[in-house]
């Protein structure tokens, strides 16, 4: 496991039930429609209030039963049948039966136009559901969907009551409208500010790994949004809260010194990287992209800004992700090589220290990515390093709205600071495929600004990863994808992104799910 194991509970402060855990979030949740659970704050709430059909073991990454007690898959991974646990109810009293599960997956698989609900990115090729009996449900796929089983374990597949599913997308912003079957229930919400969760006393269906299966020992969890790092961490250290998300590397030492615990949960996905938008002519040439890759002194970045909890990236995806292939040799810091590549590409060094081609300077821009740890500092450092090879990098800032718009325009932002966490090979498709997150901004995605760039070869590979039925072929394809992306210089992977949390000495038995979302279900607080 990639996080510091919490200190074992001592006999003296025996598990005392009760107490509300004060959790400091960095960002407010936006929308609790489960497929939007990829956004950390959304996922941080959904992980407490919803259950999923399956649980992915955080040690073995195996899929284990949860609401589904068992399942079967046909040979080409187009039909999945699940048997449900009896007696499970949503917090509004409706049973979690085959019909409810089918409605959930119909919505997640196909979306709901009328309600503006988009389909989930983890469910590909979904066709329809079939209710076999009240506790058996079957799903059909148009094409092989080997990733679906893992897809049922992610937060984005949290089961919600049919009443919630009838709400239009807008109303999912209010946490009180989201009814799950999880160990906690939303009691109150102050928009953008705080969410109060209370324990569901009749909860008895937790996953095996988190046994025993009874209700949580906490009385509740109070999630307070404190966007400001200095206040979040300062308040945490000053003893004003029990748990805090998004601890930056520079604060870790302070926290440990203070006697609190750092939890660094791996997110096992696509690494924290800087990716190119080859639609922009400045970075259309692979030589330029590779030059910049080699102009990046990644160890220096890690040494300057991060801590040992941030392992150096050795490929596009994390080392503990499925299908990882070590590409460390292709990711060297070699400014001389970078200079040669740029010269070859026609970008020659002008006397003023900047590279130019036909009078045009090689000046790039990138937006700070607020969710990424120390994005701005990292980019500033990157700019400093690139400056040495004569490339100018401007870090753009501005309102979130401007950022979203700019990031959709390769002419404005030839670079993008990206990261996607999910413990399944499908994650790489989520990141790169045009109709998914489309970090490279290929044609066919949602941006209207892309002129021509599209890479059918890469997209073909991604399609295959998503539909390979044989796990071995799937991993082989995944290896080809990684090699392809790095060879074309689409991405400069920087580090394997952990989710770093701080917990006070009072907090015991803290757990995380497979991609580093906190699970408060087993947690208890020692009496102060």
């Amino acid at each position: 496991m990639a996080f510091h194991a919490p200190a074992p509970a001592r006999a003296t402060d025996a598990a005392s039930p009760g107490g509300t855990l004060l959790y400091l979030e960095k960002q407010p949740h936006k929308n609790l429609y489960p497929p939007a659970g990829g956004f950390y704050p959304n996922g941080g709430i959904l992980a407490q209030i919803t259950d999923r059909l399956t649980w992915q073991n955080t040690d073995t990454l195996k899929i284990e039963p949860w609401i589904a007690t068992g399942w079967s898959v046909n040979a080409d991974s187009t039909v999945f049948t699940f048997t449900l646990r009896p007696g499970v109810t949503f917090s509004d009293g409706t049973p979690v039966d085959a019909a409810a599960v089918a409605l959930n997956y119909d919505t997640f698989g196909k979306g709901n136009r009328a309600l503006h609900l988009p389909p989930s990115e983890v469910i590909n090729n979904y066709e329809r559901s079939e209710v076999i009996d009240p506790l058996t449900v079957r799903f059909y796929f148009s094409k092989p969907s080997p990733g679906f089983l893992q897809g049922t374990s992610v937060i984005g597949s949290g089961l919600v009551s049919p009443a919630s599913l009838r709400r239009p997308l807008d109303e999912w912003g209010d946490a009180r409208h989201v009814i799950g079957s999880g160990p906690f229930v939303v009691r109150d919400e102050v928009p953008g500010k705080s969410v109060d969760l209370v324990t569901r006393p009749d909860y008895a269906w937790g996953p095996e790994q988190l046994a025993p299966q009874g209700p949580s020992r906490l009385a509740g969890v109070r999630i307070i949004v404190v966007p400001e790092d200095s206040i979040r961490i300062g308040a945490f250290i000053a003893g004003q809260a029990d748990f805090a998300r998004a601890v930056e590397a520079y604060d870790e030492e302070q926290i440990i010194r203070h006697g609190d615990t750092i939890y660094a949960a791996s997110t096992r996905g696509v690494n924290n990287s800087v990716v190119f938008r080859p639609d922009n002519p400045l970075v259309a040439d692979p030589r330029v992209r590779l030059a910049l890759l080699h102009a990046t002194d990644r160890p220096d970045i890690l040494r300057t800004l991060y801590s040992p909890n941030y392992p150096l990236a050795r490929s596009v995806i994390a080392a503990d992700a499925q299908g990882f292939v070590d590409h460390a040799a292709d990711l060297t810091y070699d400014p001389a090589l970078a200079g040669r590549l740029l010269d070859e590409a026609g970008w020659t060094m002008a006397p003023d220290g900047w590279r130019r081609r036909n009078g045009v300077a090689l000046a790039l821009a990138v937006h700070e990515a607020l969710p990424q740890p120390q994005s701005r500092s990292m980019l500033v450092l990157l700019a400093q390093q690139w400056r040495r090879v004569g490339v100018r990098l401007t870090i753009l800032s501005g309102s979130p709205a401007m950022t979203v718009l700019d990031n959709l325009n390769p002419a404005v932002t030839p670079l993008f600071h990206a990261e996607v966490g999910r413990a399944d090979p499908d994650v790489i498709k989520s990141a790169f495929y045009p109709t998914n997150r489309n970090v490279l901004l290929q044609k066919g995605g949602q941006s209207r600004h892309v002129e021509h760039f599209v890479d059918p070869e890469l997209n073909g590979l991604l399609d295959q990863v998503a539909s390979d039925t044989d796990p071995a072929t799937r991993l082989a394809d995944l290896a080809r994808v990684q090699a392809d992306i790095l060879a074309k210089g689409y991405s400069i992977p920087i580090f394997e992104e952990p989710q770093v949390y701080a917990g006070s000495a009072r907090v015991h038995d803290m757990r995380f799910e497979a991609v580093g979302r906190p699970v408060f279900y087993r947690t208890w607080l020692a009496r102060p």
Partner: protein
Amino acid sequence: MTRYILSRAAQALLVLWGAFTLSFVLLQVMPGDAVLIKFQDPELGLSPQQISDIRASYGADESAFVQYAHVLGRTLAGQLGYSIETGVPVSRMLHAAYPTTLRLAVVSFGGAIMLAASFATAALLAPLRPLRAALRLVPGLASGIPVFWLEIVAIQLVSFHWKLVPVVGVSGWAAAVLPGLALAIPISAPLTQVFLSAAERVMAQPFIDVLRARGASPLRILYAHVLPNALPPTLTISGLVFGEILAGAVVTETVFGLDGLGQLAQQAVANQDVAVLQAIILISVAGFVVINFTVDALHPLIDPRIRRTQAGGAA
């Protein structure tokens, strides 16, 4: 008198309408719109077709004039619309947010008045002329302190270092104390400056000498005579102080992570959440108008000379 009130009210409505229109124009010409921005977020993974459907369903494709008419009509009917960012009715957001800002405003305004009063007393009555001159420079210095900086430092020292008051997990008045007092310092500066210069003008008047010649003590002269005379010019900047408190609230609530109107405004600007921003501008303009109206109404109570002119003016 009624005529006077009616004309003032008409003037106030005109100002409200103007500010509303101005904010609409400002927000309308912004690039993109909130609907687009929200649903283009790659995390949602919507296709362009889906986005344009959604846009149409929000009426974001109508012409600016139609939208203006729609928004104005809706606002006149007392409805503030829905936040595009969160989908919650704006009125609900305002309802949730205003108590925080109100508390912040009360604490900072009260604090500012106390600060200004004690400081002005010191600056006017200090024993030596150089000392008074030096004190006189302090408000200028205080008005140059960036609120956000002061507050960051205050949090670090007062809350984290000395652990006097918590800044997270508190609510109500307790949450308003530290930010309110921090905001009070820059707010008090213009109050002190205006009061001091008004007080100095009053102190240069012959009647102050006459009072001294009757044996009145400086403190008595200050509180019984200079204060009531210097109050009207100080009151006239109330509207300005109100604006400063609101602007201060934007920064303060951002720094302290408070969920008030200032925070709402800053997020609305960031997300181009037109409905929310317009509602907040409307509220602040209404507040400004009401405060100025009140100050005008209070004036004659404080300054009897105005009673006659006003009565004469309305007769």
